């Protein structure tokens, strides 16, 4: 090559005799600030506090507590509701229905998506049904629900399924379609087919999308439940959180309305941070599939 030969002479070669490695020192300590900052719940609590302060300030500025009660007033109503046991009981009722509808919706989404991923008609069916039914508001289903399931839980679950299934199916399906070709081939190469292929390859590979679909589905289930409980509102003793909110709204107990909503929010936060966050940590993040 063209390099002048003297350069080599200028830079002597060298060789190092390596001793076994022993002197690997322990972790450097990180500063207290950094350690606190690394605690997700602390950062998030901070955000919550800021939001609460903003809320209170806004409410005081608007000074119209029939429309927007402040944080403190709502907190008062919330704790009253807790103390009387009403909020807990209502939330429990709602959660019971919610979980049933949510699980049913996920199951249906999984079946539809599995069909879609394995056959062309299944694929068309999913695309068409989703495009058709996803935009339909829950109230549109009311007459049908009345006819088929009567009033009460059956109808609520029907409406919940409707609100969960399309969003979850869309996310799941997108996830399935985006699985890397090599990974698919590896799975097929093991001899996996049909459901086992979906469960062992597609589902874990598409988990990030599936989880986002599950989160969206969960949120929409809540929304719909609250809205639907107004309508299907079970009999007075057996109404859930939506019922609680509706009733108090009708009576212009706005602080209680907000207390009900706070209950929804808190349950949302708990589910996000305990369930979904944990799921993500022990799966997609641990596996390096998501940052």
């Amino acid at each position, binding site marked *: 090559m063209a390099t002048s030969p003297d350069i080599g002479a200028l830079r002597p070669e060298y060789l190092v005799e390596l001793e076994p490695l022993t002197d690997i020192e322990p972790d450097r300590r990180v500063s207290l600030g950094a350690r606190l900052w690394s605690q997700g719940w602390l950062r998030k609590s901070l955000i919550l506090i800021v939001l609460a302060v903003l809320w209170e300030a806004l409410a005081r500025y608007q000074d119209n507590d029939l429309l927007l009660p402040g944080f403190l007033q709502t907190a008062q109503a919330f704790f009253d509701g807790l103390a009387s046991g009403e909020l807990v009981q209502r939330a429990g009722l709602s959660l019971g229905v919610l979980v049933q509808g949510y699980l049913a919706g996920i199951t249906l989404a999984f079946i539809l998506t599995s069909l879609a991923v394995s056959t062309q008609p299944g694929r068309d069916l999913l695309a068409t049904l989703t495009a058709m039914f996803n935009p339909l508001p829950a109230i549109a289903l009311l007459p049908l629900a009345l006819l088929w399931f009567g009033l009460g839980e059956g109808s609520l679950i029907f409406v919940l399924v409707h609100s969960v299934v399309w969003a979850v199916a869309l996310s799941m399906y997108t996830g399935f379609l985006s699985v890397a070709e090599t990974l698919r*081939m590896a799975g097929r*190469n*093991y*001899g996996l087919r049909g459901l086992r292929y979906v469960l062992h*390859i597609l589902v874990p590979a598409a988990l990030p999308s599936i989880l986002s679909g599950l989160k969206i589905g969960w949120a929409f289930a809540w929304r719909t439940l609250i809205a639907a409980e107004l309508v299907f509102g079970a009999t007075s003793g057996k109404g859930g959180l939506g019922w609680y909110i509706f009733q108090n709204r009708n009576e212009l107990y706005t602080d209680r309305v907000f207390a009900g909503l706070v209950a929804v929010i808190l349950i949302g936060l708990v589910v996000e941070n305990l369930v979904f966050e944990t799921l993500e940590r022990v799966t997609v993040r641990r*596996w390096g599939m998501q940052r």
Partner: protein
Amino acid sequence: MTRDATRELSAVVPSLPDPLLRVRGATLEYRSRERVVRATHRVSFDVLPSDRYILLGPSGCGKSSLLKAVAGFVPVREGSIELDGKPVREPGPDRIVVFQEFDQLPPWKTVLQNVAFPLQVARKLSRKEAEARARHYLDKVGLSAFVQAYPHTLSGGMKQRVAIARALAMQPRILLMDEPFAALDALTRRRMQEELLALWEDAPFTLLFVTHSIDEALVVGNRVLLLSPHPGRVRAELDAHAFGLHSAGSPAFQAASRRIHDLLFDEPAVPHAAQAQVLARAAA
């Protein structure tokens, strides 16, 4: 392809065993809305039981495509591929592939699970047996210390070694390896070649092996199929059973290596110029 290349090889030499894998006039194409790319053009060859059969050819000539076609992932557009006399229709654990890509390991399984899982699925081993066998092969590829690691924490070469261990552990009817050692350093590569050949000595299996290294072809294989540049056509089939791990540097080895080299070099000049075979702007 000329007539004498497509002739029934085993018919000519009746004392040979029936081929395990029989590829006849296989044309492979990739079609999209915009264009059709022909990957191989009427390729024929036979792989006999216990062959260590090498596919050798320039980048983009269709080696991986051929391997995927044998594995059942890419359909032949013309011609046929038969395994044990039965046409290949779909993938299956009788033909385990080591892919060229680094993302062939399910990221949600540890190194150990990556090797053990297909054993449970396809070989019906119990979890325990599968893990024991997995550990055995992971040891052979030098990854004992990483059995609990997830694939995303491995280097490129380590990932490929996991895939190799997975394939070896499966002991398939025919092992399909696509440049399995390309990401490995000289030493590790050598060790892998040794392992592969030692396993073959222990219990001969059939191997279809893609490589771009002429030396590796001669060392690993007993038979080498030389493919032309894109689209791949059979250029030659050569014998390599005389060379082994310790032949490198011997005059015969060097001569064989040079001969293959020349066969590849002596292609009509500028082989890259007219590579893309844009057959049609079809509106599929």
